[in-house]
């Protein structure tokens, strides 16, 4: 069969279906590919199959969460009856008369039984002598959904620490809203390229504003803020120097503000992803990191317990590594010609792997067990993952330039160690899932744990998918397509951002005493989750279709036109995500407002007098 007819099979299909359900889309393409002889292999290749399988994992977890909820509702509405087993006739006939009358008597009593109506009550007055009841109500707050457990514990936090954590998180939240507003606008430009013709808002200038804002503004500030709490708590001491914490806060925020203004004015460092800020701006950020590191290190140094908790391993190392990384990324002496390209691959990969991923793992090792109120499953797995993270992650930057003019051996090393990344990823996700094991019912009753679950699942799915994507084979289909964008959102959003939210919802109510509306947290969770799923799956399907069309030699502009439907769905997914961020910002506000005053416990039990 000649290639055009393969395209004929492929393209009408995508046009007609567009997006009934991308699952069907992928299936139907694979079905029509099966009729041809040349390209059916693509969809059954290990990399592609593996990715589809990983997507199924996400679907499966979503189904699990939903079915657990449905199950609870069904159980609650259905009366469970214990069936008394009737005694068979043969046994009755063999019975002695006394036994028989005993059986008859019991049965008669049972048949005559009636509820008196006051089984659960009493006539005496009720007292709560041990203060076991924290809250009593006869009306549920929201009649539509399950009520979650309220966060009972209040952690006694020094006011300075509480303030610094809240200010880091507050700034991060602002950057999240701003950064994703920009992202949403950019996503719309794929569908309506003529939205504006303002130089400051043009795609090429605004795209790095989106990525840098969510990287250095949102995720970095949120991580450091959450890190301050961990570092003090697990060292059983107070923060070494609050002034430096504030200085770092100003430096980082300043670098994001100035950097974004520069980018929009057309001043960038040379277009390398995630190092678009020119060096004086990045220097501010790096100084912020150095101050933060010194502060964290000094706090760990004066810890009141001999061991360094594993969270602090990750957090301290990620700061050290990122300071080295920023230095290597910006020093000029080896960056002419393709030297720059090697550094670019190294830098953009380590930026994600050594900074965001490593720090976030450190946060999970504290916040997940503390949210579940039990220890981490295996401390040793955490340590194994730590060292393998350092060894393998560092070597795989060049997998962003497979088939490029960079040396073949570097590409091979990068691909081999990308596969090696399965070790820390499996060690980490096993550790987290085993920690959750036995507490599944707690997930349905908590508004924090679903965020952890999604984050951990995406940690496994997004990272494994990244390893599969590094293969030379999958690079043929996916490299340069929208698939990359799907992958980075699966990781930076599915992993990092979901874990940040989990940690924020876990800790902020405990240190401020104010809880968000559970309805709104639920809305935040589901909008973000469904939005992300729509976003990634549409771009993965669109990217695959595009890559295959390129291989078939379809004219480039046709592949642009044919991706439009997928871009529309991306914009819709992005809109859901953005709305969820507005809800999150509101939730954060309700959790943190006027936190300096000691909050009244929300629901004091009303004393009942006789």
């Amino acid at each position, binding site marked *: 069969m000649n290639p055009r007819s393969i395209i004929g099979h492929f393209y009408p299909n995508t046009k007609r279906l567009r997006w009934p359900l991308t699952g069907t889309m992928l299936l139907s393409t694979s079905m029509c590919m099966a009729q041809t002889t040349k390209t059916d292999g693509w969809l059954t290749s290990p990399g592609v199959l593996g990715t589809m399988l990983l997507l199924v994992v996400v679907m499966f977890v979503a189904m699990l969460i939903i079915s657990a909820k449905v199950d609870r509702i069904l159980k609650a509405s259905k009366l469970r009856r214990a069936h008394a087993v009737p005694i068979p006739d043969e046994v009755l006939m063999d019975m002695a008369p006394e036994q028989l009358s005993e059986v008859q008597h019991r049965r008669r009593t049972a048949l005559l039984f009636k509820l008196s109506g006051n089984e659960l009550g009493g006539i005496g007055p009720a007292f709560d002598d041990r203060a076991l009841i924290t809250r009593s109500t006869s009306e549920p707050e929201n009649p539509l959904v399950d009520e979650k457990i309220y966060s009972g514990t209040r952690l006694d936090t020094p006011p300075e620490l509480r303030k610094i954590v809240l200010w880091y998180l507050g700034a991060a939240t602002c950057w999240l809203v701003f950064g994703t507003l920009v992202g949403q606008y950019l996503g719309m430009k794929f569908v309506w390229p003529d939205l504006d013709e303002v130089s400051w808002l043009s795609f090429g200038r605004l795209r790095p504003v989106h990525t840098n804002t969510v990287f250095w503004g949102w995720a970095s500030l949120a991580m450091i803020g959450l890190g301050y709490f961990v570092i003090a708590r697990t060292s059983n001491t107070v923060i070494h120097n609050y002034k430096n914490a504030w200085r770092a806060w100003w430096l980082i925020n300043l670098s994001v503000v100035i950097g974004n203004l520069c980018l929009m004015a057309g001043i960038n460092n*040379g*277009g390398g992803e995630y190092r678009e800020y020119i060096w004086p701006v990045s220097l501010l950020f790096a100084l912020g990191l150095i101050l933060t590191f010194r502060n964290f290190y000094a706090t760990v140094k004066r810890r009141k317990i001999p061991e360094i908790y594993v969270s602090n391993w990750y957090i301290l190392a990620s700061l050290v590594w990122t300071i080295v990384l920023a230095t290597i990324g910006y020093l000029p002496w080896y960056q002419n010609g393709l030297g720059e390209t090697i550094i670019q691959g190294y830098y953009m990969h380590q930026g994600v792997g050594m900074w965001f991923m490593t720090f976030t793992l450190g946060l999970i090792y504290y916040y997940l067990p503390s949210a579940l109120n039990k220890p981490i499953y295996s401390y040793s797995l955490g340590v194994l993952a730590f060292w393998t993270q350092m060894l393998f992650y560092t070597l795989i930057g060049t997998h962003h330039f497979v088939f490029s003019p960079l040396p073949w051996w570097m590409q091979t090393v990068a691909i081999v160690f990308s596969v090696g990344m399965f070790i820390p990823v499996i060690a980490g996700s096993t550790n987290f899932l085993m920690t959750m094991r036995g507490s599944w019912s707690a997930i349905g009753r908590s508004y924090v744990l679903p965020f952890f679950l999604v984050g951990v699942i995406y940690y496994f799915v997004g990272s494994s998918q990244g390893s599969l994507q590094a293969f030379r084979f999958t690079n043929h289909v996916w490299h340069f397509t929208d698939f990359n964008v799907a992958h980075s959102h699966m990781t930076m959003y599915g992993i990092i951002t979901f874990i940040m939210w989990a940690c924020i919802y876990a800790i902020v109510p405990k240190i401020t005493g104010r809880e968000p509306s559970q309805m709104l947290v639920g809305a935040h969770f589901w909008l973000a989750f469904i939005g992300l799923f729509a976003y990634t799956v549409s771009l993965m399907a669109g990217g695959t279709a595009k890559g295959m069309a390129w291989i078939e030699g379809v004219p480039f502009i046709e592949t642009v036109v044919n991706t439009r439907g997928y871009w529309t769905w991306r914009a819709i997914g992005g809109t859901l995500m953005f709305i969820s961020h507005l809800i999150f910002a509101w939730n954060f506000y309700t959790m943190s407002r006027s936190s300096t005053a000691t909050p009244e416990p929300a629901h004091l039990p009303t004393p009942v007098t006789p």
Partner: protein
Amino acid sequence: MINFHKDHASLVNVALVVFVVLSTGIAVAPANRMQHTDPLPDMPKMTDAQRRGLAVYVSEGCMACHTQQVRNIEMDKTWGSRPSVPSDYHYSKERLNIWQQSPSLLGSERTGPDLTNIGQRQPGAQWHLLHLYDPRMVVKGSIMPRYGWLFEEVDSANVKAGDVVVPIPADRLGGAGRKVIATPEMNDLVAYLISLKQAPLPTGVEPGKFLPSPNADGKAVKMTDADALPDGSAIFSQVCAACHQADGKGLAGAFPPLAGSTIVNDKDPTPMITIVLGGYDARADYGVMPGQAENLTDAQITAVVNHVRSSFGNEAPATTEDVVKGIRFTVSPETALGQ
């Protein structure tokens, strides 16, 4: 024995030292080696205008959507005649100035076409100017941004000598007697884009091979049937439609129509094939037509010529590969050897 669990200093130091060693081995040292290249012998130095154009390219963030690397795989043949080599970037990837590093030209996303060879595919400045003014004017399905701030709309009285006037249709402008001229930045950018061509490798040096697209079992996939002519309509939309438009009607004042053209409909295909091979610049009212002798093989030219002669309402007889081969000998003998 070091106890990482209790000794914070050695924990941090080991993490630091191992990371620095690994980073040096995998990034800094290879980068240092890779930055020393010689330019290819036939590679022209960048002019000042082209350098300024590169700065505009960086400043507008063009690399967010455009790559500049021809990978050594079959599917990238569309973008260049050979896989890219490190020397290709000898002049373009230098540190820009004290504030800006060597530009990340290779890119990671192909939302738009690869630009390694754009100067070969689109050598005319006029096309680039129109395209950057409004991409959808010349390429219907394009999603590229418009770059209006790099143009200026002036009264025709104010057009000075040396100003580059862009032939924008009058109904797009704010009144009669208005003209659009390109700013100096825009002219620099176009000069840079036109300069993007793959330089030939030195004689005797074999270019790298394009790896065939593998099938799942690792076997190479043969993409085209050797006997059949290539698909003329695909070549047309890839090579010709940018100027002559997908409907063959051209753009008034910039690119001539092929629909109903006398040259196209001539029973004798010689004039048309001559123009396709050698280019054409005889009419002041239209832009320059670049010759395609270096871009397309005889079979491809035959296919696309036949496509044009039988589409858009044209009804001219088909030609054959032998005819094209013969004309190539007279028009462009230096490319005939490679055929």
